[in-house]
């Protein structure tokens, strides 16, 4: 390793432990593992205790920081009972009490659901806008981060390839689709439309995207129907009827009459907020929890009829949210041997990773390695819990491709996800869960254009102008068909 790192003109190595701890705040990716103590108040005090700060000063700093971030009501709680988003805000507060000058954030929202991620990004944005704090953030969830930042740096293969004001960097990224695919939807739309908009500033937010779409005519509102309509397969792979579940006798129902039917060979995405019962439904389908009422059938047979763990042999397999719980061995090769599958039998390529420790892989690679292990069971139904959590846009596209290949080989895939864009691009059908039941299900084109909040950025950008444009490509297609408004006529809403 060579080179040098300076903080405020001084080499970092020369800073005392006290200076670097107080002046440079660091928040990492995993909300759970950064927390040191068991109670929120103690976690907030931890850094200042280390510096030997007197009790009264600690009390005051905690009070003002917690009030500013709006986490005052968490003060007395156990860290264990917080949601992921709350944990991450506590981690941020635990750093802010030390009054840092520089905040370093390492993918702070990768493990959070979209609502919690928004909340966190909001807090970070306020720190920068209202307090002028310097923030260095590594992130690949970019829809909100890019419009907020004053400088965007793009790294590839250990080198800094672009650096500058977000709009100009995005313009240069046109030739790098694998990086461009992670940029905000408005920017991607503008890039796809390309030459039409070269002189205008690059739109970054949905609002700016709407202005861009507003410059196009809307004589053709809908993409031409190709005469194809989706048919739900006749044979069901998984059926759930009136499924009720609660964790203990006195606790409230988590599942309140879930009913859904997924056909053989479908890709079915379950969407919904935290606590809506998505993951619990998946666990019930996998036989990991026992509903107190209702029927679950897998390939026409009730779950109870699968004796002696036979459900998990050549029938059904589940990939959990935390893929680290999947690995048992020291290398990927041993994992695959253990599971009884050869690398060349896989529908994707793991050859470069075979001799690495599973924990040392990137998020996307871990997901693929874990998927390989699960596929060794040759399941007919594959259950995925948040398969895109913590992945960058390119890795998400790769996972989507793999899942499509699996579908071609006849597999039924049921995925629980927060990721609206991922579901829109992949699913045959989507279901929205709320308060323990499936509220609606339909194809992405029935589902997303009807929603005004829980929907893709492309739908939000084209609302009122076009209908049925779920992805950026569809929105761009519609813009091209319609063409720009005549000059002088533009800008009208």
């Amino acid at each position, binding site marked *: 390793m060579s080179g040098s790192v300076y903080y405020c003109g001084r080499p970092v190595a020369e800073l005392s432990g006290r200076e670097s*701890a*107080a002046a440079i705040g660091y928040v990492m990716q995993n909300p759970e593992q950064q927390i*040191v103590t068991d109670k929120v108040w103690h976690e907030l005090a931890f850094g200042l205790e280390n510096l030997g700060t007197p*009790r009264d000063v600690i009390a005051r700093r905690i009070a003002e920081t917690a009030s500013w971030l709006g986490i005052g009501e968490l003060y007395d709680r156990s860290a264990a009972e917080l949601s992921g988003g709350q944990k991450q805000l506590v981690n941020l507060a635990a750093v802010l009490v030390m009054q840092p000058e520089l905040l370093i954030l390492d993918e702070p929202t990768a493990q959070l659901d979209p609502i919690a991620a928004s909340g966190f990004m909001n807090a970070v944005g306020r720190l920068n806008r209202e307090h002028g704090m310097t923030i260095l953030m590594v992130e690949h969830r970019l829809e909100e981060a890019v419009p907020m930042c004053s400088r965007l740096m793009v790294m590839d293969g250990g080198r800094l390839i672009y650096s500058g004001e977000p709009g100009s960097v995005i313009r240069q990224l046109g030739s790098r689709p694998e990086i461009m695919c992670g940029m905000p939807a408005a920017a991607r739309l503008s890039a796809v439309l390309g030459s039409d908009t070269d002189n205008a500033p690059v739109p970054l937010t949905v609002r700016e995207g709407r202005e861009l779409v507003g410059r196009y005519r809307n004589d053709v509102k809908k993409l031409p129907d190709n005469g194809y309509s989706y048919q739900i397969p006749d044979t069901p792979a998984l059926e759930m009827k009136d499924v009720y579940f609660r964790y203990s006798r006195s606790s409230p129902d988590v599942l309140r009459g879930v009913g859904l039917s997924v056909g053989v060979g479908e890709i079915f995405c379950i969407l919904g907020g935290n606590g809506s019962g998505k993951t619990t439904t998946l666990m019930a389908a996998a036989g990991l929890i026992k509903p107190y009422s209702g029927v679950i059938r897998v390939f026409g047979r009730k779950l109870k009829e699968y004796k002696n763990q036979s459900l998990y042999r050549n029938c059904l397999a589940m990939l959990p949210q935390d893929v680290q719980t999947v690995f048992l061995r020291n290398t990927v090769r041993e994992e695959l041997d253990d599971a009884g599958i050869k690398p060349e039998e896989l529908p994707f390529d793991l050859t470069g990773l075979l001799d690495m420790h599973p924990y040392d892989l990137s998020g996307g690679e871990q997901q693929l390695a874990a998927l390989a292990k699960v596929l060794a069971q040759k399941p007919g139904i594959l259950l995925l819990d948040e398969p895109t959590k913590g992945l960058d846009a390119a890795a998400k596209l790769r996972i989507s491709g793999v899942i499509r290949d699996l579908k071609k080989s006849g597999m039924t895939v049921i995925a629980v996800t927060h990721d609206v864009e991922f579901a829109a691009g992949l699913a045959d059908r989507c279901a929205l869960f709320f308060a323990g039941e499936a509220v609606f299900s339909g194809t992405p084109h029935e589902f997303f254009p009807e929603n005004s909040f829980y929907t893709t950025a492309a739908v939000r950008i084209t609302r009122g102008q076009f209908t049925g444009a779920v992805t950026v490509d569809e929105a761009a297609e519609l813009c091209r068909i319609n063409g720009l408004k005549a000059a002088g006529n533009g800008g009208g809403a």
Partner: protein
Amino acid sequence: MEGRRVRSFSEYDPAVTAVYFAAVMGLAMFSNSPAITLLSLCGALLYFFSLNGTSGGRFHLFAFLLFIILAAVNPLVSHNGTTVLLVVNDRPITLEALIYGLCSSVLITGTLYWLRCFTQIMTTDKLLRVTGFLSPKLSLVLSMAVRFVPLFGRQWQKINNAQRAMGLYREDNAIDGARGSLRVFSVLVTWALENGITTADSMEARGCGVSRRTSFHKFRLRHGDYILLAAELILFAGAASAAAAGAFDFSCYPSVTMAERDWRTYTGAAAYGLLVLLPVIIDMEARIRWSLLKPTGLALSIPERKNMP
């Protein structure tokens, strides 16, 4: 009385509470006098009832069985003493051994009830406050341990579920179950080590070890805490000095002997009796004052409700 905060015994500063339990249990354990242990048991029972009301039946059953067993076992195994009551299997059952057994039963069940009350009112926050007095480092280690143990349990469940749904368990039988559990445990250890590295980074980034730690806590010693502490210490000193002067001396073997009762015995017993009753008295006072306060509170809350849309 105006201006003093109404609080129950459990709401006093944890240090005051900890000193109290140490004094009550310590004295009962070091003086083996039946008078003291009996007072300790009565006080513990009263406070337990005042905390739990009529619930806690299981614990009572457990304590009762323990009491009977302990009292019964001693005369069966110890044959010292001069007064033989009956002979079983050529072995004498003596009155002295019976009394000794009863005394230790009273002591142990009393201590058990005190400990139960202690764990009920000393939450982890309060324990940390007390250990923080002794050493801020110890307090941190405890806090981390308190967090880590349930975390470990939850991760076990997660890994077990993940592995089950991937076909780790081949059959529904005990051998296969044990084999699977062993592998789950090995994943858990790997995870814990990995998790530890992140936690260590997070601690280092926040300056762990750069200087002497202070110990933050949410408590503030108030006037009332000092008064209670003083009362505890005075009563303890009264009872302990009597015990030290031999006023409660008691021995079972070879025959039951008791110290002469003089003024020390009575004042010592009175001091200890008052000491064990302190929590109940304080809680009772708080309860009465709350019930006197209630009407005003209600009157205030009614117009507020009406204003709500």
